[in-house]
C-alpha cells in the first residue's frame, strides 16, 4: 500500500551529538517545506517514527544503547518504513561500516566531515517531490 505523500516532508535526524544534529539541520535548511525532528538515540528515533510518519532519515552509526545498523534493521523490518530513504552519515574512519550499511538497506552513505552543499543535494534528490514545487 502506498503512503500518500505528505504535504510537508518530515526528515528525522538521528545522531547522539547535539552539535552534529544542528549542523545537519542547518545544512538542509534551504530544502523548502521540510519539517525536521531530532533524535539523540536509536530508541528515541524508533519511537518518534511510530508516532509521526517520516519521509526520510539521516542516521549516525556509532551511538550509545543501539547501533545505527540495528536502527536500520528495525526500520527495514517495519511494515510502513521498509522503503524509507535512509542516509547513513558516519564519521571518517568508519569506512568498514559502509558495506554493512549497504547490506542492511541504507539508501545512501556519506562521511563526516560532510560538505553542507553535498548533503543538501543528496537529500533533495531522495525526498519525495513536494506538492508546492
Amino acid at each position: 500500500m502506498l503512503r500518500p505523500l505528505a504535504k510537508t516532508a518530515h526528515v528525522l535526524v538521528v545522531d547522539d551529538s547535539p552539535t552534529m544534529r544542528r549542523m545537519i539541520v542547518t545544512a538542509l535548511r534551504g530544502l523548502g517545506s521540510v519539517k525536521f525532528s531530532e533524535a539523540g538515540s536509536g530508541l528515541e528515533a524508533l519511537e518518534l517514527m511510530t508516532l509521526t510518519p517520516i519521509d526520510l532519515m539521516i542516521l549516525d552509526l556509532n551511538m550509545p544503547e543501539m547501533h545505527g545498523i540495528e536502527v536500520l534493521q528495525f526500520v527495514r523490518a517495519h511494515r510502513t518504513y521498509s522503503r524509507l530513504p535512509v542516509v547513513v552519515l558516519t564519521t571518517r574512519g568508519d569506512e568498514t561500516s559502509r558495506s554493512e550499511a549497504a547490506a542492511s538497506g541504507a539508501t545512501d552513505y556519506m562521511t563526516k566531515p560532510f560538505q553542507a552543499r553535498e548533503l543538501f543535494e543528496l537529500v533533495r534528490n531522495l525526498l519525495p517531490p513536494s506538492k508546492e514545487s
Partner: protein
Amino acid sequence: MTTPDSEAPDNFGEQFLDDYFAECDEHIAAVRRHLLALDQQVGEGRIDSALLDELFRSFHTIKGISGMVGFREEEQLAHRIEDTLRAVRQGDVSLNVDRIDGLIESVALLDRRLAARRSTAPLPVLPDEDAAAIQPPDAAAGTAGSGPLLTFSIEFTPTPALAERGININSLRARMQEIGEILKSTPTVKGQGEISFQFQVRTHVDLMARPEWNSEGVQTKAEAHVPDIHRPAPKVASSNVVRVDLVRLDELIRIVGEMVTSRARMEDQVKQARKNLPSPEWRAMFESAQTMARQLRDLRDGVMRVRMVQIGEIFDRMQFVVRDMARESGKRVIVNVIGQETEIDKFLIERLMDPLLHLVRNAVSHGLERPDERRSAGKPPEGRLTLRATTIGEKVSIEIADDGRGIDVERVAERARATGLLAPGVPLDDARLLELICYPGFSTRVEADRESGRGVGMDVVKSTVEALTGTLSFSTQTDQGSRFCIEVPLTLAMADALIVTVCGQTYAVPQLTVREVFEVEPSAVRALERNEMIAHRGSALPLFRLSEFFKLTEPHHSRDRRFHVFVTGTGNNALGIAVDRIVGHQEIVVRTIGDSLVQVPGIAGATDLGDEKVVLILDVPALRRSALQERMMRTGN
C-alpha cells in the same frame, strides 16, 4: 525549492563553535570521570567494557565534530586516542597504568588545545550550561534504598495519546534512571508494524507495588535476580537537556529581580492604601499581594536553580591533578570525595576553580609526605586527601583536607618575626597563621616549586574567595595534616542586604558579610594611636568610618549623634564599620559594575531598591583590606 545558504563549504562549521566547545567540554568531563574509574579498575584487575565503549564514543564524537568545524589537529588527536581504545577493546593491546597515563596525557593535550582555540576564537567565550553536570552523575546510588535489589522487565508501547501526555521513551527512561539502573533496552517490531520497547531495570524499589509502573502503555513484570555487573557510566548528554547561555539566564534573573523590587514597592503602596480603603477590599488586596510575594519567591528560586551545577565535575578535575602530581613525585594519594552532588552557582564555581586547584596542589606537594616518610611517622604509606562539599543554609562549604605533616608553625613564626609581620611574643593561632601564609609574597619556601608556583598564590586564593563574599578558614596540626575550608554563598546574583545611610547616601551591605549590628554613643569611641576603637564584647573593636573612606560630608553631619555600626570578621580580624543609620533589610539583585572606568574602590556593584534610584553595594572585603592598610600605615608612623 530554494538553494541552501551560499556559505563556502570550509567555513560552514564556524557558526557552530559555541556548540562545539560546549559539547567537547561535556565529553572531556565525562572522559575524565571514566578514565579515573578505569584507572581504579586496572588497579583492581577488572575492566568494564561498557566504560571503554563510553570513552570510545566520546572521542568518536569529538573527532566527528572537530572535523566539521575544521579543527584538523583535534580531529587527528581524537582519532589517535580512538585507535588506542579500539585496540584495547579488541584485545590487541592490554590496558595498563602506562597506557592510561598516555591516555590522560592525550586528554590533557586535547583540553589545552581546545582552551587555546577558544581563547582565540572570534566568538564570545561564554561556555554553555553544562549538561553533564546538571544530570545527577550517580542517580542510581543517590536513591539507593536499603531494600534488596530487584530486577524488572518493563515493556513500553508508545502511542500518540501517551506522547501528548508526556509519556515517551525519554520520560520513561528518566523515571527508570531515577529509581535504579537500566540494564538493557531493546525495541521489537510487533505484528502490525508497531514498535514496542523492552527494558530491564534493577532497583531497590518494588515496582509491582507501584500502580504507575503498570498503567496504560507500560507493563512491568518482576524478574529473577540478575548477577551484579558494573553499573554503566552515566550518559554524557541526553537530548532532553537544554543548554542555556548564562547571558540569557542573567537577563531572566534581572527581570525577576526587577519584579522583586516592584513588589516591594507595591507592598508599601498596599500598606498606605489601608487608611483609604474599606477593610474587606483592603484585606483582599493585601492577601493577593501576599500570594504574589510567595509565587515570586518560587519563581526566583526556580530561576536560580537553573544556574546551579554539581560540584562533582570540579572534584573529578582535581582528582586528575592529584593523580598526575602523585605520579611525578612518587607519592601515593587516596582521594576521598564527599558531596559531589552539592550544587553551586556556575559563575561561582568557575571563579573558584583556580583557588581550589591551588589548595589541592599545595596539599599534595607540601602537605603529604612520601611513602617512606609516612611509614617512619607511623602512618599508612598512602596519603589521604579529602574533598568535601556541603550546603549549609544559603552557603556552600568546600573543604580540602590532607593527613600530611601539617604546616611548620615554628618556621612560619620565625620568618614572620624576622620580616616584622608578627610582633615578638604574640602567639600564632590558626587565624593568624592563615593571614600570614596569605600575605602577598610570604612563603616558607625559598622558591616556589612547580606545582604550587603555577598561576595563583595563597594571597590570590584568599582575595578571590573574599571577592565572592566568601570566607577562607584553616586549621593545621603537626603530623596530622591541614584543612582549608572555603565558604561562599550559593549564588551571587541575589543577596539579602542591609540598607545603610551615610551623609544622606544610601548603600547596600551584603548580609553574609555582616556578623552583628549595634548602636553606639559618640562618647563610647576611644582614640588609640590615631585609630578609633570602641569597647565591644570585652575587647577593643577597631572602628572604620565609611564617611571618611568615601570622603562624604554633609552640613548636618555631626559627630555628636548616635550612630550604627556593623561588625564584619571575627576575632582579631573583627572590624566595626560606622554608618549613620541602618535603615532596613531587603533582598537585592546584584549587578556588577563591569566598566573599569566607573569601578570605585569599596564598591562591589549596584542595585535598586524599587524606587528606581541606583544604590551602590559595598565591597566589604575591600573595605576591610583598606582599613587594615590604613591602620598599619598609621601605627607605622
